[in-house]
């Protein structure tokens, strides 16, 4: 290749990254790692998407779910999903999201059934994860939906009925918009002098007094 031609190619590559990409040789294959078998993948592939992709075969009724819930869930989440002690609350809270005291639950906040089903499938009951059978998962999810008045007492959850469930807060979310809604925070010349009127202390952490007792010496040494 003559010098002028190679220079030309270089300029072209710099000027047009897309083209440079096309010319690139395929990524190096190191020959490290084995092909994963369908059986291996199936044992771990437990995720479920809002559109139902990933759902296992099976079904479960609200009625079956109630029994399971009482046995396996109620000790922490409360008989009606109201929470026993300080464990997460699973029901109620409707209409509170815009209030001073929002209560986020499956009924008030979760956008999709899959967010419940997928989570229970991988993480619940807390401390005995991945112990529920597929039919039990459908049943207990149906019951949690029923506790939230999202499905009626006769409902049976399955792949077929999946799309009938309408979560109340499904339109409650929007994409991160900080770069537009908080544009004012991009300010290359922040104020340095006399930026505000004299400052008053309006709140004290020591007065609220919720900090754990630790062994750090908090007293100053100055008289």
């Amino acid at each position, binding site marked *: 290749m003559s010098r002028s031609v190679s220079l030309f190619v270089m300029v072209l590559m710099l000027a047009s990254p897309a083209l440079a990409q096309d010319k690139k040789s395929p990524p190096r294959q190191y020959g490290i790692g084995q*092909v994963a078998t369908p059986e291996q993948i199936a044992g771990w592939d437990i995720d479920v998407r809002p559109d139902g992709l990933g759902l296992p075969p099976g079904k479960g009724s609200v009625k079956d779910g109630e029994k399971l819930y009482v046995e396996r869930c109620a000790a922490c989440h409360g008989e009606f999903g109201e929470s026993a002690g300080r464990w997460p609350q699973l029901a109620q809270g409707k209409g509170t999201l815009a209030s001073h005291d*929002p209560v986020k639950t499956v009924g008030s906040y979760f956008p999709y059934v899959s967010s419940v089903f997928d*989570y229970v499938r991988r993480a619940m009951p807390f401390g005995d994860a991945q112990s529920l059978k597929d039919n039990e998962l459908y049943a207990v999810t149906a019951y949690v939906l029923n506790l939230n008045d999202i499905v009626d007492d006769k409902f049976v959850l399955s792949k077929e009925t999946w799309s009938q469930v309408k979560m109340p807060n499904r339109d409650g979310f929007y994409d991160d918009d900080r770069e537009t809604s908080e544009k*004012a925070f991009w300010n290359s010349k*922040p104020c340095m002098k006399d930026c505000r009127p004299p400052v008053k202390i309006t709140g004290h*952490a020591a007065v609220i007094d919720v900090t754990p007792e630790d062994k750090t010496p908090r007293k100053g040494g*100055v008289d």
Partner: protein
Amino acid sequence: MTDSNDEARTSRRRFLAGAAGLAAAGATGSALANDKNLPPNVADWSKHLGEGVAVRPYGHPSKFEKDVIRRDVQWLTASRESSVSFTPLHELDGIITPNGLCFERHHAGIAEIDPNDYRLIIHGLVDKPLIFTLDDLKRLPRVNRIYFLECAANTGMEWRGAQLNGCQYTHGMIHTVQYTGVPLKLLLEQAGVKPAGKWLLVEGGDASGLNRSLPLAKALDDCMIAYRQNGEMLRPEQGYPVRLVVPGWQGNIWVKWLRRIEVGDQPWYSREETSKYTDLMENGKARKFTFVMDAKSVITSPSPQMPVKHKGFQVISGLAWSGRGKVTRVDVSLDGGRNWRAARLDGPVLDKCCVRFYAEAEWNGEPWLLQSRAMDETGYVQPSKDDLRKIRGVNSIYHNNGIQTWALKASGEVENVEVG
């Protein structure tokens, strides 16, 4: 009260009694010192042999530093298996967090994984689904990168006003270590992502199976599969043997004990990105996929757990970081944000990494309202808490990067306060 503190107290009493003839405790240094070790006396450790080599095969900090530890706030959560402990930022300097002090956030306790039984599966919209052992991952080309990791809920208890009195508790859900591992891009290239692939599901192998959706573009940009922190293998609390590194993004997506990556064409909307890690605004709607951690800073000393002991010259020390790139400047105010001066950045200034800043000042006992304000290379300036609240209200839990105020009192005591 601890043994060493008790010791310190008795020795102080002894000192005060025995040294009555001396001008003042201050003349010889610390009031807690034991005079038999001070000149002109010769200390014990100058006369006798100490422990030999390999008596401490894995070294540990001096016994006098035993209160430099992670701490939790027990009323925050129902169980320690799904909870958080905080980095003692007030006791640290520079930018690197020692491995044993990195804050913890688990959802089902610490998984203890035998490295021989570790597997990572990559599947979904790929040409060739693959399974890797830990040895496989260690055989691949590797890189070293220093990044901060901040939990999106760091400072989350402070939305409604000053609550927790100590920067360990207000800001301690952050750590900075050097990771060693494989670029995620290289791993994905081994499997071959199909053109329809746009999102990855990343999943942990612990008993919460924590799963998040990660945009493919970020995965190909700067993510890593890490197996080392600060040179040694990851700590179990940090995901031993393998965790995901997602520079500049909220800690929850840095999945620990990583066992599976699935390539898909849309996000999964798992519980951790719907019920949690969404930011509820005042109107009841919530922002989703707020991955990036905005620029933020905090003065680590003085701070409530690090009161001032002397009048006169003071070094004000703190940390600043931004998930959008490099920190370019940090300003410090002594009067609650009326007037600012530029602090000095010291040590490395790296992309999506903590930087250490210092400001030096004379203090004569007058009240100070200490604040710091970080700026990054995108021009973002850390906002005041009130400016944040004007846009977001007080219900969002996550992403509180507002300016922190510490009140320094005449006694040298420091308190977390809210200013208006």
